[in-house]
């Protein structure tokens, strides 16, 4: 390719195509397995949506957010309010507005509602905190997570507080989750190569230079924050319709830790990294979980002590940080496979 010519459409979208193929292959193989594997694959796809959503903001803006699981919580509850049986809602969730309390909506409107409510909250919150840079912004997102947690675990008449919302229709299986994973990948990739994505990444590399390049930093950050909250809100709605039961505890520190670990292990600098992290961490956690449960070797049942999952994940993270500080994907996207190897080193990350 001649220097400076704009790459062809196929080539520009190659990383997206490659990632979609990998994700599809995983779901196709998983769908041949037993029920337990199907559950694992479904949960992995939902987490992929979450992590891709978080990546859209953190990866492009360079601002670490601890608050995105709060958007997942908001999306999950909003969707559950829409799809749970009205007789149960009239009994337990007396504080819901009429249109939710007395009606039952379908899965898709519920998912859309979950995403939109999360996006709306992100718009309000982001208008205030997108002006902050560095650690101040990150702490503000953490405070948001704590606020959401506290509200959703105490607002008896709307969230059922510490008792659970039950009877959410469990309609999300591997292929439904896959469909949303593909959607999230497309949205994140299109954003990344869009004008807003480029301007936002400029502000990540050098905030001062971006300002002097006529980039309205607060605006481009806010756009990314809202789109990213929408994706994570949708993931929350999916999760509600996968679990069937909702408690606010689900959406707090441990889920925040796992999803950020996925992003960091894969590499926060690229969509390929986000996907890699989800796959690798899921596999590691599953293997350790099986070993905690015990593996029969001859007559004895060998098993790791409880808590090995968390310790193992911590060790993996430490090793990745030591040997590949920018993550397994090193901030690059899947390279175009038809470039001679000698030139490949020079092809920049998207």
């Amino acid at each position: 390719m001649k220097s400076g010519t704009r790459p062809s459409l196929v080539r520009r979208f190659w990383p997206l195509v490659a990632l979609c193929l990998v994700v599809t292959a995983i779901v196709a193989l998983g769908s041949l397995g037993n029920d337990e594997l199907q559950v694992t694959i479904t949960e992995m796809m939902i987490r992929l949506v979450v992590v891709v959503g978080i990546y859209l903001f953190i990866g492009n803006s360079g601002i670490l957010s601890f608050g995105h699981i709060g958007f997942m919580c908001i999306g999950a509850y909003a969707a559950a309010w829409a799809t749970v049986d009205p007789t149960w809602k009239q009994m337990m969730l007396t504080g819901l507005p009429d249109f939710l309390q007395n009606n039952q909506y379908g899965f898709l409107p519920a998912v859309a509602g979950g995403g939109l409510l999360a996006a709306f909250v992100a718009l309000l919150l982001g208008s205030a905190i997108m002006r902050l840079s560095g650690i101040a912004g990150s702490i503000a997102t953490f405070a948001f997570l704590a606020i959401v947690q506290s509200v959703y675990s105490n607002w008896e008449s709307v969230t059922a507080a510490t008792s659970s919302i039950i009877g959410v229709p469990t309609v999300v299986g591997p292929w439904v989750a896959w469909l949303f994973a593909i959607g999230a990948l497309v949205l994140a990739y299109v954003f990344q190569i869009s004008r807003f994505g480029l301007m936002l990444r400029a502000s990540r590399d050098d905030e001062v230079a971006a300002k002097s390049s006529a980039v309205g930093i607060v605006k481009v950050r806010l756009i990314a924050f809202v789109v990213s909250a929408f994706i994570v809100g949708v993931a929350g709605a999916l999760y509600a319709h996968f679990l069937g039961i909702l408690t606010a505890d689900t959406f707090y520190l441990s889920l925040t830790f796992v999803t950020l670990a996925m992003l960091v292990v894969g590499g926060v600098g690229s969509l390929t990294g986000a996907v890699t992290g989800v796959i690798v961490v899921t596999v590691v956690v599953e293997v350790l979980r099986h070993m905690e449960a015990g593996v029969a070797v001859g007559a004895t049942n060998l098993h790791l002590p409880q808590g090995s999952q968390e310790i193992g994940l911590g060790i993996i993270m430490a090793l990745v940080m030591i040997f590949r500080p920018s993550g397994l994907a090193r901030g690059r996207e899947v390279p175009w496979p038809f470039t001679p190897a000698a030139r490949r080193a020079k092809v920049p990350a998207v």
Partner: protein
Amino acid sequence: MNDALHDLPPGIAQAQAAELVAESIVVQFQGLMAISDVSLKVERHEIFGLIGPNGAGKTTLVNCLTGFQRPSTGRVLLAGEDTTGWRPDKFRKQGIARTFQAGRLFRDMTVAENVEVTALGLGMSRRAAHEHAMAMLAWVGLADKADAVAGTLPYTDERRVGIARAMVMSPAFVLLDEPAAGMSDAECDDLMHTIVAIPKEFTCGVLLIEHNMGVIMGVCDRIHVLDGGRTIAQGLPAEIRSDANVISAYLGMEG
């Protein structure tokens, strides 16, 4: 005139402001007087030299003229309009561009993308921004490095990318903060040829901060000298060369 540099898409106007004025600027950092009562005026057709020893307040003044530093008192006027309260991106949109001493390229992005960002920020479409960025890179002689990652460029090329980025869509004024610092004489000569062409090529006023007196005397139409945050002289190069204050404060220092 190179037409590719000026072919802007319809609906996107080149900045029109005719003069950039600093009016009695004072900048105080917690009691420390960085700039005291400095006024200057840069016109659209000239190269205006801003010189002075280290710590004289040159960069602080440029920060005031581009929205990065708010003057404690005094105003910056663009074509007579008060710019107080404008953010840096607004300064750029109104036609005041700058470069940085440290280069400040977007290191993880390609050279072409570095230049494209400004075009996007100014409202061009993705495709138009790319074409315009390529024209700008050709102008500074870096078209063949368009696909290189900016962080891998040698120092001299970094400076050129910075200038290409600043000149996107022909600003009315460009403020160059020591663009030749650390360059060899030959590299410096090369760069000055590019800079001297700016007023004619882009109808753009240049404010040039530079340490090398030979360079400043050679390329500037007018010169403003700062020392310790105060104006100690201003005028034509010949006047500055013979000014007693300048000789003792600045030239004397260089031996």
